[in-house]
Each structure stands twice: as C-alpha cells, then as structure tokens.
C-alpha cells in the first residue's frame, strides 16, 4: 500500500521519541566538594533581588550561599531590595529601597521576586534568572578567564563619615571602549523584619539577619568610565572614589563592605568584581 510507505517511517520517528527519556535513580545529588578556582579566573557577582515581604526570598538567599560555599573566594553576593514586596508598608516601614536597586529593577524589567543576575550576563537572552538556574550560570561564568585584575583598598574617616576607595585595575586582556568601574556599598547584619515562608506557621521573623544588603552606589548606579582610552594588555590604572554617608542613614560602618566591579556598559556584563570590608 502506498500509505504503508509513509506510516512505517512515521512510526519509527515516533518511537525515536521514546528514547528521549532520562530516568535518574537516587542519589539525586552530585558529589559536592568546594572547588578551588584559579585566581586568574573571573569572580562572579550574584545579585539576589529580594524583598522583606517576599516569603520565597530567604530560600533564594540560601541557594546563593550554597553556591558561595561551592566556590569559596570566587563568589560575591549582593542582596538588592527591589520590586513590589520591598516597598515599606504602614505597619512595617523600614526602608530597604535604594536608587541603585530601583535602577536595576527598571533596567532589567523586574516582574517579581526572587530573581537574580549572575554577572549581569544574559542566558538565552534573559538577564533575570530564577534561583534554580543560579548554580548553573555561576558555574559557566566562573570558568572564564578574567579580563581584569582588581585590587582594592578602602578606608573610613569616621569624623566626616567619608568612605575612600582606591582601586588598582590591571588589564589581563586587551581592554575596550565603554568599560565602566562601579562601586557599591553593602551592609551585613541589618536586623529587621523578613517574611520567611519556610518557617510556617511562624513566617514573620522580626529579627532576621539581613546580609550583604545593597545600601548605595559610590559613583552612580552604573559607575563611571574606567579610562578615556581602552587599556592595553598588562596596563594598570588607579581609580580613587569618595563617598560621604548622608546624615539620615543608619548604616553601621563596621558592617559595611565595598563591592567594586568593572562592567561593559554596552552589554551590561560584569567583567570582574572584588569585595573588601570597609573596616578590617
């Protein structure tokens, strides 16, 4: 029959699909040992976009910490409080919002929380990644060679509440136009309310220890140009930045750290990142 000529290949094609099936048996977890990464490799910045009324967010923060344990010394985490669930309410009015956080939410079209940015690199065209893809994205980024080496030193003048930063940037590869340097201020141990749905029925945690909270930017949300001309291979440049903590801020200087990044202002990608405590 003429139709038989067609039906047989069709059935073979269908049965091929039956082979496209992976069945995983326990144990489901990979053998996990903290991995040593070459210091010349890229460090990875995980921007965990969160909110104090976001009950799913503490679980995402735990995912970020798990990744940091996997690659100690090479993963830096920032908690960016943004989105509808980070907006203060009449009963819970501590304000975690920042201009930087709002700029990040606007630029990447944040629809909800938790979402994250891994070195602000798009994966299949999407910048915002859900927590279950952070480990995969970090692993991919961390194996790349670093384009820059960042050495940073910070000092704090308590009388004038001024933060002074000195960054030595060395190009490990040919630089390019439109590379920016950006310095963010983060604070650890901010004790405030957080909703944590994992703790049902006690989901309201009044004294949650918020870590690496993004507090502000030293030189604008996106930073300033690294240099007039692209850096040549092995060329170094020194950048100095200053920032005075405004009067009304309740930041505790000994809990502050600075996260400095070199970013590509055309593609948004973070090329290298480094972190230093403000007061040792």
């Amino acid at each position, binding site marked *: 029959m003429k*139709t038989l000529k*067609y*039906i047989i290949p*069709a059935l073979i*094609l*269908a049965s091929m*699909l*039956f082979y*496209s*099936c*992976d*069945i*995983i048996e*326990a*144990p*489901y*977890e*990979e053998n*996990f040992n903290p991995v040593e990464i070459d210091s010349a490799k890229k460090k990875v910045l995980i921007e965990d976009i969160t909110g104090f009324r976001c*009950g*799913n967010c503490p679980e995402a923060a735990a995912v970020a910490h*798990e990744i940091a344990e*996997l690659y100690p010394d090479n993963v830096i985490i920032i908690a960016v409080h943004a989105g509808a669930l980070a907006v203060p*309410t*009449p*009963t819970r009015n501590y304000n975690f919002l920042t201009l930087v956080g709002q700029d990040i939410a606007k630029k990447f*079209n*944040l*629809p*909800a929380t938790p979402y994250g940015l891994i070195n602000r690199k798009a*994966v*299949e*065209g*999407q910048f*915002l*990644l*859900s*927590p*279950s*893809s952070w*480990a*995969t994205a970090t*692993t*991919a980024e961390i194996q790349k060679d670093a384009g820059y080496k960042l050495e940073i030193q910070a000092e704090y003048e308590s009388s004038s509440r001024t933060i002074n930063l000195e960054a030595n940037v060395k190009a490990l590869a040919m630089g390019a136009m439109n590379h920016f340097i950006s310095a963010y201020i983060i604070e650890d141990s901010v004790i405030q309310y957080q909703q944590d*749905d994992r703790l*049902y*029925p006690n*989901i309201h945690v009044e004294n949650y220890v918020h870590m690496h909270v993004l507090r502000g930017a030293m030189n604008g949300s996106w930073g300033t140009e690294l240099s007039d001309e692209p850096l040549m291979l092995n060329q170094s440049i020194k950048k100095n930045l200053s920032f005075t903590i405004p009067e009304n801020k309740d930041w505790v200087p000994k809990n502050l750290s600075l996260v400095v990044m070199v970013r590509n202002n055309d593609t948004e990608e973070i090329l290298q990142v480094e972190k230093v405590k403000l007061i040792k």
Partner: protein
Amino acid sequence: MKLINTLVIVLLFIGTCNATSQGFGDGGTLSGNFQIDAQTYNADSVIGAPKVDEQILSNAYLNLMYRNADFEIGFRYENYMNPLLGYDPRFQGQGIAYRYIRYNTEMLDITAGDFYEQFGSGLIFRAYEERSLGFDNAVDGVRVKFRPIEGVEFTGLLGKQRLFWNKGAGIVRGANLNIDINEMVEELLPDDLSVRLGGSLVSRFQNDNDPFLRLPENVLAYSGRLSVSSMSFMFDAEYSYKYNDPSSTNKLNYNPGQGLLLTGSVFGDGFGFSLNTHWIDNMDFRGDRTARSNELLINFIPPLTKQHGYALSAFYPYASQPNGEAGLQAEFTYKIPRNTFLGGKYGTTLDVNFSLVNSIDSTRIDKYTYDAPFLGIGDRTFFRDINFDIAHRWSEDFKTNLNIVSLIYDKDVMENEGAPKYGKVSANIIILDMTYNMNETNAIRMELQHMSSSQDSAFFEPDNVNGDWFHVLFEYTVAPNWFFTVYDQYNYGNEFEDKRIHYLNGSVAYLTGATRIQVGFGRQRGGIICVGGVCRAVPASNGLFLSLATSF
C-alpha cells in the same frame, strides 16, 4: 531589521506569485487584524494604584496573512512601549513576535516558523495565545501534519518556545496520532456512533550543568485518549504520564507525573447533563526546568470550573494547580418548554453547575520524592462553586437572567503558592441582569450584583478586596453602532472603613463592520483575571483607556 526582512520576503512572494507554478491560483488573499489597548495611569493611593513614570502604557498587535492556493505566509508585529501594568515588563519593546510559512494540502501540512498546536485536550501539549493574559508559548520550529488516509492524522513537531523576545532554553519535540474510526473504516460502526483514538509523545531536552543535582536532560511524557460519542451521549478519557522532571515549580522532586481526565455527557430533548472529572499529579511541564509563573508552559490542565462572566462572580477565579489537584464538575442544563407554568410564553433556560477541586493525597518521603497514590484525594479544598443560572424572557421587549453563585476559594493556594496568609474565602453572589428593548434601535440593560464574603484569617494589612460588594451597571445601546456603559462597584463591607471605596467607570464603544473602538474613564479595581485556569494579576488603576480592534 527583522521587520524589514520579513516585509521584503512577503512582498517578493506576492510579486512572484503571478508566475505559473504548481499550486498557485490567480492571485492570493491578504488578510489580517490589528488591536491596540492603551491606558493612562493616575496615581491613586486610595485604591492602591501606583505611580507610573510613563503615564501612558499600551499593547499593540498587528497580524498579516497572505494566502495563495496551498501556500500561506504570515507574521505578527507586537509593540509594548511600555507594556500595560499587569503584563510582564519583560515584554517591553517591539518586533516581529511570530512569523511562519505554511504549505497545506489534503495530505500534507508543513509549517516552518512559529505555530500553535494542541494534542487532545492539551493535557500533554498545548501551544496557544491568550492576549488578555499576556500568554504566548508559540513553538518556533517545524511542524508536519500527515494525513495518509481518511481518518488518520499524524503530527510531528520540533522547536523552541517563545519567551518574551527570545526563546526558551529547552528544545521541545512532539508526535501525535489521531484516528477517527468512522472516517477510516466507514462500515465498521453504526451511523451515529463516533469513536476516536489518539496517542501523543512529547519530550523536552535541556542541558544539565548544575553542580548540585543530577538532572534529567531529556524529559518524556506520553498520553493516550479515547472519545466515543453519539446523538445522545459523549464520553472522553485521556491519560498522561510524565517521567521525572525536577523543576523550579515542583520543588525539584524526582517523582513522575500523571494525569487522568474523564468526561461524560448525555443530552436529550431540551436537557443536557455533563460530568467532568480529573486527577492531576506533578503535571507542570515547561520548556525550561527553571521557568516560573506563566513562562514556557508546554501543557495545559483543562479547567473544571465555570468561567464566570459577571464582575462579581469572576472576582475569585480558579487557578489550575498542575502540581496536584483532583476535581469534578457537574453541569445540568434544562430548557423549560414554552407555554408551561414555569416556562412562560417564551421558555426558560435553567443551568445548574457544581465544581469541586481538592488537593491530592500526598506524603513527603524525603527531600526529592513523595508518595501520592493514584487517584488518592487529599482533604484540602482548593475551590468549590455551586451556581444557578435562570434565563427568562418575559415579553418581546424584556428578558432577565438571574445568577446565584456560592463559592469557597482557598486564597492561599490560588494567590500565595499555598503559603498560609489569607485562609479560605467564602462568597455568595447574586446577580440580576435585565434587558429592555425600548424600540427598534434602542435598548437598555441593567445589572445588579451583590457579593457577601468572609475570609478565614485575620487581616494583616488593609486591602481593597475583603468584605461585601455591590455592583450596578447600566448599558444603553443604540443599534447598530453605539454602546454607552456606566458602572459602579462599591466595597461597602470592607473591614477597614477608609477602604470602603466606589469604583466608578464609564465607557463608550462604537462598532462598525469589523472595527470596534472603545474609550472609557474611571477607576478599575485591582484583581485577578483567569482564562482556562491560567491567571494574571491586574493592578488597580485610575485613568483613561482606549481600545481599538479591527480586521481586514
């Protein structure tokens, strides 16, 4: 650039079609449609309407199709500058969101580019567009439909699904076989009995580079279905099985998924009765294991609840729970004949509907597996809806519709991913819809709606939703073109006095031929809109809205 390229291809195609080639007729037909919805936003803290920097937001769509004999080419241009509030902000931008070339004959139907498709009820595969939800999971790839003999249709597809302005990470493959016994072998079955069989296979491939878990790169699902119908009854059954698929939405569990749908209906002289049931376990299947909310869905759980059309009955809509739900829906329709006591001069239509959806019986074994016996029913009620609809025509000029709804809505499951916050909401709604034809061209319609509702848990923060509501609407029609509407929704029973707000809104619509223009102004309540169990949150707004739709 992409827009220009597509236009060039379309024009070249039209330009060359006069050549004598196989399958080309005299000239083709060009058709399409256009839609734009735009709104202005004024900050209104009373109703919780946020400040919108852009002040005006809009969604626009243009579809263009050219058909000539067996060939068809088309595309859709979309513009969100910026997207309306409540639509995912990642839609921001503009471009060609959909484009395809199709060759369709009696035996072969080949599509290259974007397409929509459904296997059976959609339980295993459904790619569709629903604009009111901002939902579009079109597959971009290749689809071949093959009909070797009457009554047999085989479909194969391969591609990646749409995710805003990009594609999902996973590759989706599917095969489907539909057999219609009546058409295949004409004398086998009695004339009025129809038997149809079907089977499908769908699989997703996505790389595993996760350092923590061993994830399946190929996830396969299969399904089988049977449909028997005659003049007086109809019976449908569909079963689907999905192999391990740890993902963002199912807490990374390694259990397989299963779905069973059973539907039966009987119909006779003026009456119809249908019973629709399903049992679903772990059937959230996506084109990317890390996708969430309405992103990259591969399949669709047919809902067991009535899609309510009135403002207050649609206040608490049902959202499908593909990770686990068991439910049934029973519907009875009866047309009380004319010239009887209850039927009156013109007859009365009575519709009774009962829906109940519960959790499934599931016990956690360890971090990655759980035990859910097949067809086991849990004791948590997600949704229950009993409703009556009585439509009666009183005279040539006057008709009414009475709608009574009593529902239980588990707000934690529907709106908070199960995390406890609101408890269950019980609501009783009564609606009277009356239409009076004043003369040949003018008609007036009035809706009176009331909802009394109560919520389990204490109110943490004041909201604009709780309590009793009253809704009144007037619609004045001047046939054939004009519609004037004004309505007020009043939350008079809100627990918090300063939240007892009026939502006043008015609009004018003009219809001519295939074009509809509507302009309105006023306050819109924040809420949820669901179509087929898939939902979107709509933020409160206050402003002017404009909507235009036309086809050509």
